[in-house]
């Protein structure tokens, strides 16, 4: 019996590959956008301006405090009430970008705060402009802390992208869910789905660990 299932599973492999591409597309677009926005918000958050700091802080708390599943339902079912009708794919990108931006904002802010204040004072008394201070003094040092966590965060976001399958984005999780209706052997089908995620995520986890070690070595 299970041999029959296995043959049918192998036959539907192209379907899984299509799903894998969708997962990669959704994650890559939202990761790129989330990183840009996250860095922008993170830098803004460490500015002296109180209003920005509290607004961003509150938004980050709301996003970190609610499950991604609820967020995606809100984007998909409630934005239409405000007259914003999004298809599943853009809705998924929007929700995932927002999630990524919030987490990356925290990572960037923590990285910037880890740079000793004296560095900024020294840069400022050397006559560097605000932008030059950030670009040449603060950020290069902050990246030491930011980079390993950033790669770790990418792994979490790629895994979170599996949740967008519930609003009908045909990513690899949804392909598994559709396949298990025809091939009723959950261990095999979701074993394969898990394997595909593993192939993407495991190298990234290793990269994150490697970066962490390398950056820690550089400090001493």
């Amino acid at each position, binding site marked *: 019996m299970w041999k029959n299932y296995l043959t049918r599973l192998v036959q539907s492999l192209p379907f899984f590959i299509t799903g894998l591409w969708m997962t990669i597309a959704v994650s890559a677009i939202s990761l790129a956008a989330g990183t840009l926005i996250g860095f922008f918000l993170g830098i803004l958050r460490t500015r002296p301006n109180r209003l920005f700091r509290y607004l961003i802080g509150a938004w980050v*708390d*709301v996003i*970190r*405090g*609610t*499950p*991604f*599943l*609820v967020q995606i*339902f*809100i984007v998909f*079912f*409630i934005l239409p*009430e*405000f*007259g914003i009708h999004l298809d599943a794919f853009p809705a998924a990108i929007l929700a995932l970008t927002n999630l990524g931006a919030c987490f990356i904002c925290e990572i960037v802010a923590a990285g910037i705060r880890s740079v000793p204040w004296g560095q900024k004072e020294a840069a400022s008394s050397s006559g560097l402009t605000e932008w030059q201070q950030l670009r040449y003094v603060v950020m290069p040092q902050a990246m030491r802390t930011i980079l390993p966590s950033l790669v770790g965060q990418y*792994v979490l976001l790629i*895994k*979170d*992208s*599996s*949740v967008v*399958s*519930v609003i009908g984005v045909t990513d690899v*999780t949804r392909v*598994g*869910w559709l396949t*298990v209706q025809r091939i*009723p*052997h*959950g*261990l095999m*089908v*979701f*074993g394969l*789905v*898990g394997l595909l*995620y*593993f192939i993407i*995520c*495991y190298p990234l*986890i290793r990269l994150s660990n490697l970066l962490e070690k390398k950056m820690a070595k550089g400090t001493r």
Partner: protein
Amino acid sequence: MLETFNFRVIFEYMPFFLKCFTATLWLSGVGLVGALAVGTLACAMRISGSKLLSTAAGVYIESIRSTPLLVQIYFFYFGLPSLGIMVTEEITGVVALSLNSGAYIAEILRAGVQSIPFGQIEASLSSGLSYFQRMRYIVFPQALGVTIPPMLGQAIVLVKDSALLSLIAVTELTRAGQIMTSERFMPAEGFFTSAVFYLVIYFMLKSLAGWSEKRLIFRESR
């Protein structure tokens, strides 16, 4: 627009939401206890001298960390019946949650244990402390400060992760929002109410984590 946002319906559904709120607390609580057990075991195996045990724990931790929780939930939900194991959705869900968080907790515990320099153990041995005293005064206070804050962080993640159980028809907070949406077609009222309840749990755990961070870190000397 949201001019029609209907608080009356929310009040009507409030008892149901409260029931689901307790369900979420229960699921996460039991999941956390299970995760602590699994995590402690996996951590003990990982740092044990035995190569076999350590590899087994390593494979478990890495495969959990590299795959999404949703896939793991589906794996058990669709997979256990094909092994002939029939259990309720709640049990499947809690098992999946425990195994998932267990892997992260194992790593947190390992970091906690490894954060104590071996010299401290040697010093306490040569000061003539008993095993109990060593644990009580040297190892525990230091390991606790390193372990408790990330553990509370993991608890926050666990509560949010329990939302995914709604997809295998476990009645909890997110499912309450879905049910309200399908019964009254009021997604805004339903999901915003769920979100508010999650935020209540989040802020409680977050303030606890902040307090523990201030209180428990046993002087960082490095």
